[in-house]
């Protein structure tokens, strides 16, 4: 046990030499093999790119979402260094997280709007003049739900409210 406790941490003693090595051991003369690390990084980049693509497709047809973009490394297609691959991986991971958060926030708002439509249909008099469009619920098209009085002023005075659903986009001229 004492010989174990006496061993210096960080000092690699050559086995079988019978001598101790000080804290300033010789630097390794072999180049570290980066292949495994590079392969792992390339796989991670592939997976993150896949997630980014999925998120991009999930945002469609929403047009006002921020586009997650990761700039190229410059210099055309080339073999990236280990540091560059790490930077790329980190940047992609950051963008994926940002995009996921933005989409999550947006879909939460859309869910609230869908709920609002349900409430408007159930109790139009409690949602006077409220208007929800397809864009508000993340759908393509120009359709909208609008709470309006039946028979104009008479409806307003009598409290006769209803939800009018538009017929969609106007025809292109």
């Amino acid at each position, binding site marked *: 046990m004492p010989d174990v406790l006496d061993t210096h941490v960080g000092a690699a003693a050559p086995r079988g030499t019978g001598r101790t090595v000080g804290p300033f051991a010789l630097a390794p003369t072999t180049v570290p093999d980066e*292949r495994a690390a*590079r392969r792992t990084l*390339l796989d991670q*980049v*592939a997976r993150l*790119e*896949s997630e980014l*693509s*999925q998120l*991009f*497709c999930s945002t*469609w*047809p929403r047009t006002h979402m921020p*586009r997650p*973009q*990761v*700039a*190229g*490394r*410059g*210099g*055309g*297609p*080339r*073999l*990236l260094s280990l540091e*560059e691959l790490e930077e*790329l991986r980190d940047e*992609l991971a950051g963008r994926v997280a940002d995009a996921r958060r933005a989409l999550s926030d947006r879909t939460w708002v859309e869910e609230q709007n869908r709920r609002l439509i349900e409430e408007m249909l159930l109790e139009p008099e409690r949602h006077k003049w409220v208007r929800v469009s397809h864009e508000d619920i993340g759908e393509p098209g120009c359709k909208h739900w609008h709470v309006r009085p039946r028979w104009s002023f008479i409806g307003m005075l009598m409290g006769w409210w209803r939800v009018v659903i538009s017929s969609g986009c106007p025809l292109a001229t």
Partner: protein
Amino acid sequence: MSELDLVDGWVEPELAQEFPQLSLVHARVKVHPGPSPREVKQRLRMLADRYTGGKVVHMRQDPVPWAYRVFSRQVGIDPDTDRTPVEGVALRRLKHGGLRSENVVDDALTIAIAETGVPLIALDAECVDGDLGLRLARSGETLGDARPLSARQLVIADGQRPVAVVLGEVGEDAGVTPTTERMILCALGVKGVPRISLEEALWCAAETLYT
């Protein structure tokens, strides 16, 4: 049309180690550059009609275009800025409302890329010296006479010099010209793209050229 003689290009060991499934398949074909015949123009029109906004948006999740997006990313290209060839064709279609006919060679490449998703390039066979393959650019090398290449850039090269940048432009001294009589069609293969797709792309382009 006679059988295509498909040849596998060499890949530099360092590159093969990094991207084990990287490949270059090429085939020599006879060509008469010029305007496209009516059938090819019609095929382009039909191809253009198949594109919709939703399809283009979701194209990046299809296996073959996705594989090239991933490869672009892994070699330091942003595929949303420098589009992969198949996405480039789709974007051109959306911007111009159709696929314009340019000449029979470009049209054949466009059709093959759009149909299969595999990037293709065409080289003048007379300007290529030796076997084609993939390697890293050496310091001081240029593409053509003027375009400098950055060190360790991925290039398609013959026995002497780089003739094209991978997923990029073709050197002006190796590209197809109106006087070209024989050309080499090259298809780039990456991880996730089966060889049959590369063969299909080459066949598709050759078939269009012989229409």
